[in-house]
């Protein structure tokens, strides 16, 4: 009998708990919606321009980092514009750069990479656009208490590892540049060596043949002069 009596209150408790959970998860997703990072590598053909857009809320700290991976002199034009078209960052023929800014207005920010100055080399560009901070690991609404020592140690290790991963990425891209140059060099050396050896043979044989043809025409005249 007691179970039936306690049933409505138990139901109320679980209902309240579900609502709290719902709000907690919703909050987590709202936070996730405001913080993101996009890291992409794409190919930019010659005379082409590629633009990317992102909707940013005011006050968010954003970072744009880019590096040219392959192609020509490894340079690209980059331009970052805010909502009204005001140019926040503009650099021509840059190999690698990092730009941090805080969004002053709500709206769509645009950044473009241009290879319009190049006639026939297409470039591969890597960029990393970080908007806001990373979402917290736990959607913890009662985060009024400070982090414990263990937790803050974990947070600092996490931040350090993030920068390690970032350095690794940039190192990999640099090394990729060097490696593709070395592979190009190897192919070029191989083809040109074979080509040159072949040309050498052809030229020496044709020299002899040509020389012979000169003398075989004048043979009669020479003998006439001689006698």
């Amino acid at each position, binding site marked *: 009998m007691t179970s039936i009596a306690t049933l409505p209150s138990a139901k109320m408790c679980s209902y309240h708990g579900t609502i709290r959970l719902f709000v907690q998860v919703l909050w987590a997703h709202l936070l996730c919606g405001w913080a993101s990072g*996009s890291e992409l590598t794409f190919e930019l053909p010659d005379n082409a321009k590629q633009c990317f857009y992102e909707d940013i809320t005011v006050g968010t700290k954003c970072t744009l980092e880019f590096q040219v991976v392959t192609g020509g002199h490894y340079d690209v034009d980059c331009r970052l514009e805010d909502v009204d078209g005001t140019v926040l960052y503009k650099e021509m023929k840059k190999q690698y750069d990092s730009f941090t800014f805080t969004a002053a207005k709500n709206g769509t920010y645009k950044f473009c990479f241009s290879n319009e100055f190049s006639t026939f080399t297409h470039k591969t560009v890597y960029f990393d656009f970080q908007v806001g901070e990373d979402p917290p690991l736990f959607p913890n609404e009662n985060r009024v208490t400070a982090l414990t020592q263990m937790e803050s140690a974990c947070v600092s290790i996490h931040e350090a590892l993030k920068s390690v*991963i970032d350095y690794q990425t940039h*190192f990999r891209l640099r090394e990729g540049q060097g490696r593709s140059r070395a592979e190009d060099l190897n192919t070029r050396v191989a083809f040109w060596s074979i080509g040159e050896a072949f040309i050498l043979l052809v030229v020496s044989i044709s020299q002899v043949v040509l020389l012979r043809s000169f003398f075989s025409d004048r043979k009669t005249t020479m003998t006439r002069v001689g006698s």
Partner: protein
Amino acid sequence: MMLTAPGAGISILFAWLSPSYALYFHIGETEKKCFIEEIPDETMVIGKYRTQLWDKQMGSFLKATPGLGMHVEIKDPDTKIILSRQYGSEGRFTFTSHTSGDHQLCLHSNSTKMALFAGGKLRVHLDIQVGEHTNNYPEIAAKDKLTELQLRARQLLDQVEQIQKEQNYQQYREERFRMTSESTNQHVLWWSIAQTLILIVTGIWQLKHLKSFFEAKKLV
């Protein structure tokens, strides 16, 4: 504070209902856009996209276009196709790399119009997450019932694992670089010797041949 199983369930539900893929770009209706992901092996990649079609009459992008689909093609470093599927205007694709190297992810719409006549523009929202960014920590916490500290430790472990995989890949790449340099060195060495020999041999042959030719012609 732990998220319980219903919380994880609602979380997953929200992940599907509220797509907030922030970055977007424009492509032509029949244009193919490719992205390169240089990743070590056994790395998971999750890609999410959402497309909107430009409406000429309204002068803006439509919210949703039924019938508009995107074809996703993923090639591994040996240019072998590992995924080639058609998705709707909103989709999510996943793959795990089996070889380390440059993977190519290509997207193009399923528009059947000819390139000349298709003047439409598409807005593609794209989000690609690689490696440890693919882990959904609230979900993992709920599944394995981890405390906050355990979850943080798990995140650090995942990050360190990714660093380790990248270092392994770096070792393999450095070896390839070294082999390429050695091969160039060998090429330069042997082909220089070969060319010098060819030069000397053809020189000697030329002289001998011409000498015998002129002697035969009674010019010498």
